[in-house]
């Protein structure tokens, strides 16, 4: 059995090298067909992962704990309590990188120049420095520190609209948790620029203690508790566990897809577009490859007929053709994937704005959040293997028709033909 197996493998190996140029073209086709999607998936998935991570870190984490009705109506009087205990338990978990307590207050910021609707986010500055990119986006003044009180940071667009600079003040009007209108004076400590119109124009950050004071919340209550997980792919599994074990009566754990459905939908649509484009590309390339395999099989019909005459079984010939495509796939698919990963590694850190000079960075937004234009590919062994194995299977499928045709070969007809 092994002797036969090795014999068939030997014939298959030598057969594919009979026409070296054709073999190299075929190998190159499969290699490109595997390389291009691997490369684009690394890049695209990297963008998505980067975007999700940035937004999760800036806003309310990969998983958010909040009042059960907060999603429908994010008003100031919907908060969750017993937060310090939940926070402590979550921080002890291996899957959790960090947590952030958030007090959100919707209100109006006004100066003599005008009034703008804003969202005030009270955060813990020391944690925010560790997890969010916002502290690095400060272009004037400084980022917040613990106990900063009424000092806040605002976006460039908001500063422009209210005509305020670092050190200047504005009035913030909102409702407390009892529905009473409250007003307080804020002073600008820093101005940030993220490239997102939404964030730069309507977002204010302050120390959480001061936000709690305005809202009338105690230290054990927040609007949200954001949880940054180490591996954002695993958060779905954690949701159920945390909901069962940690959530209080009025609290619910939600995924970032539920918190930011716009981004989730956009990413899903974009992924579908990328995958569809890749699929079409692959079909074209594999069709070329299919023609080559079919041609190389059909032109050897006489040879196959003589082997059948000598007592070779149909199954052995089919195995030979299968091996030929198997060899193509096993060489080209892993190489293509590796090349795709290598290319993605090569362009890592490259700023796409160098290519798209005419594009305004502010237009590079998904769901109101600015995209990082610097390429940060996403490298995943399982994803690369998935692509490689999918292509390998597709290549193997190419042998089905040639195998079928060989099974219908007429020995006498082929031997009679010259």
């Amino acid at each position: 059995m092994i002797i036969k197996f090795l014999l068939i493998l030997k014939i298959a190996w030598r057969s594919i090298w009979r026409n070296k140029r054709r073999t190299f073209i075929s190998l190159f086709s499969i290699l490109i067909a595997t390389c291009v999607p691997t490369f684009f998936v690394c890049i695209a998935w990297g963008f998505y992962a980067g975007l999700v991570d940035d937004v999760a870190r800036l806003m309310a984490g990969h998983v958010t704990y909040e009042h059960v009705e907060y999603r429908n109506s994010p008003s100031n009087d919907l908060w969750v309590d017993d937060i310090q205990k939940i926070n402590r338990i979550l921080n002890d978990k291996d899957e959790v990188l960090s947590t952030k307590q958030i007090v959100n207050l919707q209100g109006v910021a006004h100066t003599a120049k005008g009034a703008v609707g804003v969202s005030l986010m009270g955060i813990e500055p020391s944690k925010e420095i560790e997890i969010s990119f916002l502290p690095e986006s400060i272009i004037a003044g400084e980022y917040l520190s613990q106990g900063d009180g009424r000092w806040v940071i605002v976006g460039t667009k908001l500063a422009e609209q209210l005509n305020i600079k670092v050190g200047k003040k504005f009035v913030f009007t909102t409702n407390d948790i009892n529905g009473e209108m409250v007003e307080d004076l804020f002073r600008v400590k820093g101005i940030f620029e993220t490239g997102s119109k939404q964030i730069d124009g309507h977002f204010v950050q302050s120390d959480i203690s001061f936000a709690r004071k305005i809202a009338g919340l105690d230290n054990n209550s927040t609007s949200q508790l954001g949880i940054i997980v180490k591996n954002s792919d695993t958060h779905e599994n954690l949701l159920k566990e945390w909901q069962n074990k940690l959530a209080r009566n009025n609290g619910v754990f939600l995924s970032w897809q539920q918190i930011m459905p716009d981004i989730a939908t956009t990413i899903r649509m974009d992924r579908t577009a990328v995958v569809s484009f890749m699929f079409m590309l692959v079909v074209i390339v594999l069709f070329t490859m299919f023609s080559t395999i079919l041609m190389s099989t059909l032109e050897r019909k006489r040879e196959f007929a003589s082997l059948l005459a000598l007592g070779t079984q149909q199954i052995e010939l089919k195995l030979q053709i299968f091996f030929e495509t198997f060899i193509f796939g096993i060489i080209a698919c892993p190489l293509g994937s590796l090349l795709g990963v290598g290319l993605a590694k090569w362009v890592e850190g490259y700023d796409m704005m160098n290519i798209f000079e005419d594009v305004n960075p502010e237009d590079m937004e998904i769901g109101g959040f600015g995209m990082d234009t610097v390429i940060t590919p996403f490298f995943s062994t399982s994803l690369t293997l998935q692509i490689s194995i999918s292509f390998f299977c597709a290549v193997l499928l190419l042998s089905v028709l040639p195998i079928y045709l060989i099974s219908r070969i007429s020995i006498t007809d082929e031997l009679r033909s010259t």
Partner: protein
Amino acid sequence: MNTKREITSLHEVVKNYGEGKVVTKALQGISLKILEGDFSVMMGPSGCGKSTLLNIIGGLDRATSGDVKFNDQDFNTLSNKALSMIRRQHIGFVFQNFNLLPVLNAYENAEYVLMLQGVSPTKRREKVMHLFQEMGLDGLENRYPRELSGGQQQRVAIARAVATEPQLVLADEITANVDSKTAQSLLELMAALNKNNNTTFLFSTHDPSVIKFAKKIIILKDGIINSEKASSEEIERFTHK
């Protein structure tokens, strides 16, 4: 009294090609016996059914009607797979166009069927090297078919056919693509194999040089056996077709 064992027998074998009104009758009731140790030559004009008959005897094709038996096994009742196994184990083929596998060298071509049979590497080597020596193929083991002359390729094809020591070797116009000197040496070689190893041969040919080696001559005409002993006129007539 004939004490030779019967290897293959045909009874009233008919082979038609096509269907309906366009039917070509290739064989019209052939009855024939091939005995162990025969060195038979089948002759006849082009299109008389020689190759069709060889194909049916070798299990490459099936008769439209009639019985074909090999070692008492009825080909009509056997599956394609079973026929294939019979060819592998008991029948050797030598083709007009050699039909060597271009990706295997001479040695590998000759050992091909032995490998299919699962013969051990030592035995294969022993058999093939012995045959190569006997057939004047020494030193050509590593050459690929494209590096061999027509005569050398046909020798390799014969070596491949007889390496498994088959009960029957079917040879279809094997001297057609080689020069007369080579043809002579190939026939001498097969006659020697017939004599020394008692290998049974059945040839189809137009070549008169084959006749002098024949122990039995079968004349085929219009799909029927005209005679099993040919006159010199008949031989003269068919060899120039």
